[in-house]
């Protein structure tokens, strides 16, 4: 198995001619994923942006075996492919799910849970653009606090719940490998994809993927937001590997939240006290993360 790294990415393209919006984070991650995993990869994409822009008859944008799953069933369709790979004794066929946050955290959570529980040999990638973008920017359970969507028009309704913690949900299944990544850190993402590919069992990657259309940011801001979300501490880069959680980047101090929030129309209208509340929530998250890291590092079971 050749190692995946950003310098070694082949020129081959497996996702071309699609109808994605300018600056689409999700399509960029999909492109890298397929370059890295190559032509033997089988990919399952549920209803959502990536399927809507990639499979319009007769112009197919995917250069590998690919299939749209029912919205709720990415994990199940992946399991069906993995079962036949087991049955036929096939090797070196990466089975990859590529699903948005709605298809993962909401409607597809049951199916994902089943696939993780059965220890299917799959790589499940959730590209998280923090709302239902394909249907027109409606709130999902991955929408962050304070973000405006077309079903949380003031941004205030989103405060009712906090973003579901998919990494902990995946880790709670006791799977071998799960990680967060960001489109702003491609080398980190590819290293994690490489690790996921070598796991004999399920792996879960939760990848931050800006959506300029839905977020009201510039189409060339995708990568920068993918970096500032990390430096502000809002999107910790993490790795869960065989029972231990590792914080990949632990900044001594966080960049001001405004560096991340201000370029996005969805956060316009947040009051100073609400931004302070977001910062407080972030700090609590980090305290818990550090405790989790200590706990799993010291665990005799890990």
């Amino acid at each position, binding site marked *: 198995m050749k190692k995946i790294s950003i310098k070694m990415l082949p020129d081959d393209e497996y996702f071309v001619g699609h109808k994605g919006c300018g600056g689409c984070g999700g399509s960029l991650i999909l492109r890298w994923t397929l370059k890295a995993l190559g032509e033997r990869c089988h990919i399952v994409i549920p209803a959502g942006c990536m399927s809507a822009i990639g499979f319009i008859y007769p112009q197919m944008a995917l250069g590998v075996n690919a299939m749209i799953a029912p919205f709720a*069933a990415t994990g*199940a369709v992946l399991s069906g492919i993995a079962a036949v790979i087991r049955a036929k004794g096939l090797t070196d066929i990466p089975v990859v799910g590529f699903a948005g946050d709605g298809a993962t955290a909401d409607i597809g959570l049951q199916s994902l849970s089943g696939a993780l529980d059965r220890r299917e040999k799959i790589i499940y990638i959730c590209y998280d653009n923090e709302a239902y973008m394909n249907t027109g920017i409606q709130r999902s359970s991955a929408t962050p606090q304070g973000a405006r969507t077309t079903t949380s028009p003031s941004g205030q309704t989103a405060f009712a719940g906090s973003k579901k913690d998919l990494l902990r949900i995946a880790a709670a299944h006791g799977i071998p490998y799960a990680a967060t990544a960001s489109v702003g850190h491609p080398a980190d993402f590819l290293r994690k994809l490489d690790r996921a590919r070598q796991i004999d069992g399920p792996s879960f990657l939760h990848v931050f993927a800006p959506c300029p259309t839905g977020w009201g940011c510039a189409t060339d801001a995708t990568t920068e937001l993918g970096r500032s979300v990390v430096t502000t501490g809002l999107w910790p880069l993490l790795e869960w590997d065989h029972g231990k959680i590792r914080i990949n980047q632990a900044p001594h101090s966080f960049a001001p939240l405004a560096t991340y929030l201000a370029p996005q129309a969805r956060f316009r209208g947040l009051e100073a006290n609400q931004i302070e509340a977001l910062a407080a929530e972030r700090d609590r998250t980090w305290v818990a993360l550090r405790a989790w890291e200590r706990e799993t590092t010291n665990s005799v079971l890990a």
Partner: protein
Amino acid sequence: MASVEFLSGNEAVAQAVRLARPRVIAAYPITPQTTVVERLSEIVEAGELDAQFVHVESEHSALALLMGSAAMGARTFTATSSQGLLYMAECLYYASGGRWPLVMMNANRALALPWNIYGDQSDSLALISSGWIQAYAEDAQEALDMIIQAYAVAEDIEVRTPVLVNLDGFVLTHTYEAVSVPDQLEVDRFLPPPDLPEGYPGTFSMSKPQSLAITAGPGDYTVFKYQQHAAVMHSAAVIRSVGEKFHQHFGRGATGLIEGYRSEDAEFILITLGSVSGTVRQAIDELRRQGVAVGMLRLRYLRPFPTEELVEYLYSSTRTRHVQNIGVLEKDISFGHQGSVSLEVKSALYEYASRQGGAAVPVLNFVAGLGGQDISGEDVQNIFLELASSVNAANQSQQTLSAPGFSDVRFLGLEPFREENQHQDAA
């Protein structure tokens, strides 16, 4: 050599699945389907079937999973019932649109509310337009035979359409009878190999990567649906030829989509489906002894709907008597109209009558067996007698109570439903 075993309907299905050698079985429990997947798990654990037995987390996932396996070119199986069938409804349409040759068994069971685990046909009839071929078994032997034939029909290159084989919950799924179980070698000779050939439409390919389960806009969508309809229509001929081939191999089984019983000279015909047919046969024999010319047509398949066969049975020039009156006995009601099967039959007869000129034979709808309600031999005899008397009454008067009226549905054990009755009650 075939062996004769004492099996329930569900166990007969499990044996048929073992013989068909699927690569992947997705299992999720629901009463009264459970013993199918229980037996199959034992068969797989015992090494009698080399299949991946996958414990899924829902019926929706069961069918979705099998679509992934079928896309990989593998033969598959799952079974469900009632709420489970409806929970996977989205995937039924998805699978037929994707043209995957899946085979699924359904234990016909009532739908909530009220909760009821017993048999009726509301579940599968609710999904009659889902693009699946729908078969209804009368007994455990036919269930076994239908499952084996279902793979041959579904995988036929011109058909490529999933098949739902229905067994009446409990009455058939849980009752035991002697069943002839064929030898593995014989079934291997009858069925194609369990892996779909490279290049089979709807499957992945390592040499030529495929995008499956695609999107089609308003300009193309209709063409896909037209092709799907054409495939299901064509499947009628394939069902017959597979049935004939099965008969040659195993020496048994009906070959048509409809099976008649003493219908050639019958004036009063009851059209029905599923396990109640046995009770109907007995009632017919009894009434024949009393000199009443009654008969039955049993619908073995509801999709494709056997319009031509039905017309042939009812209007054939070789008939010795004209059909006076038809009853449709079904375990289902399409609320606000009548039973789904009655609507199917009436549609076929109307088409025939409107082309040939003249009136269609009157059809009375008998809704019985809902939620496991017992249908006795006496009940069926009474249905036949009502068919006979309503013709006589209609001859005497246009306005008799027993003459069929619009929206006239008889619920077994209740007064006939009529709108005017309801108005009287209200007044």
